[in-house]
């Protein structure tokens, strides 16, 4: 069996403009854990995720993935990572299926259909994403979670715009993922029902 996936952040100091978002933040996650970043609006939750992904650089601090220091280059992490941000890259000119195929090119049509059924979009296979409702657009982005093999998921407010049953399905998917040894880092302002996350607090 493969060694357990780990993701550790040491002594992180993030800054945006002149504002410190966090200073001396450390945490360490391992396969099987869901982490929830909490903090007010503007506390720096999205910024922290962006730092992990590597699009935002820190003043100070280091990240290690599977024991390897990746502060300078995220390449190793990125191979194993799925990130869904506030704007998740759903193309409005593409149909729902085309949007999925872009990110999961090796999936067969059955797999795509399975993923779409999970997010209750199976009737919208051929609908352009522009003609979907807010929640349905979000579901298109989230359908990728049923098609991916990557162990680390970083999800920025994945529950936004989802209805109650959507939230439930997504929580279930996250649970299934961590049971098989994955790591999920997410942010959300809504209460979680069936998940029991580690919390990472950003005080402002």
């Amino acid at each position, binding site marked *: 069996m493969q060694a357990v996936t780990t993701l550790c952040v040491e002594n992180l100091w993030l800054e945006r403009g002149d504002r410190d978002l966090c200073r001396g933040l450390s945490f360490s996650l391992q396969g099987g854990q869901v982490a929830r970043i909490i903090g007010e609006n503007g506390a720096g939750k999205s910024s922290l995720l*962006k730092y992990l992904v590597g699009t935002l650089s820190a003043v100070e601090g280091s990240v290690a993935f599977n024991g390897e220091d990746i502060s300078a280059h995220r390449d190793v992490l*990125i191979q194993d990572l799925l990130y869904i941000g506030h704007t998740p*890259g759903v193309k409005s000119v593409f149909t729902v299926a085309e949007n999925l195929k872009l990110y999961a090119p090796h999936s067969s049509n059955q797999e795509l259909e399975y993923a779409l059924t999970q997010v209750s979009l199976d009737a919208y296979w051929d609908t352009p994403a522009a003609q979907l409702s807010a929640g349905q657009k979000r579901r298109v982005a989230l359908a990728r979670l049923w098609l991916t093999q990557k162990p680390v998921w970083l999800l920025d407010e994945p529950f936004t715009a989802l209805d109650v049953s959507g939230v439930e399905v997504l929580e279930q998917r996250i649970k299934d993922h961590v049971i098989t040894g994955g790591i999920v880092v997410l942010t959300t302002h809504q209460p979680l029902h069936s998940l029991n996350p580690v919390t990472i607090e950003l005080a402002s």
Partner: protein
Amino acid sequence: MTLSSFFKAELLTLFRRKQSIFNALIFFVMVVTLFPLGVDPSPDFLAPAAGGIIWCAIALAILMSVESLFKEDYNDGSLEQWLVSGHSVSVLVLLKVFAQWLMVVIPLVLALPFLSKMLFLASELIPVMLVSVLVGSPALFLIGAIGAALTVSLRGGAVLMLLLILPLYIPVIIFATGAVRAAQLEMPFTGQLAILGAISLLALAISPLMAAISIKASVS
């Protein structure tokens, strides 16, 4: 995302949206028809100017089509996904520019013979014209891509960047029209075409890197 799924998706977007392809084509046709109408429709005026008019039209059309190359990808979050795709951003930029080039230049090249005829360009010159477009246009796209990448998230500063990129178009146009003019005067023109090719190769080497750096800086 694999490189081939990315490239296919790029082609599909262009095909679906048609906007940038057709805009370029229409722009091109418009410039070419406006000139006879607005300036002087006589063959004596048009024939010698044809090469220059067509090249200016092409440069403007290309400029227009690359100007907002990354805008939509920025807005819908795709650029962010590029960064976490595990592929080199330079390669993605290159593929995107290549897709755009294919979809914009092929229609232009197809329209070129007709429009050249309309401007009374001698038939012998049309092949030279075509070759100059095929060899020179990649440079315009690639240079434009740097500008587009720099301007994607900037407000205000964007203009300066454009101002810096545009002057780089001028050498391309000078050599391209130079080639056509030389051919018109029955002088050797391969030298100019070679220089054009060299500029394109240089742009090919530099532009994806520069654009990738700009994109990484823009997305945060």
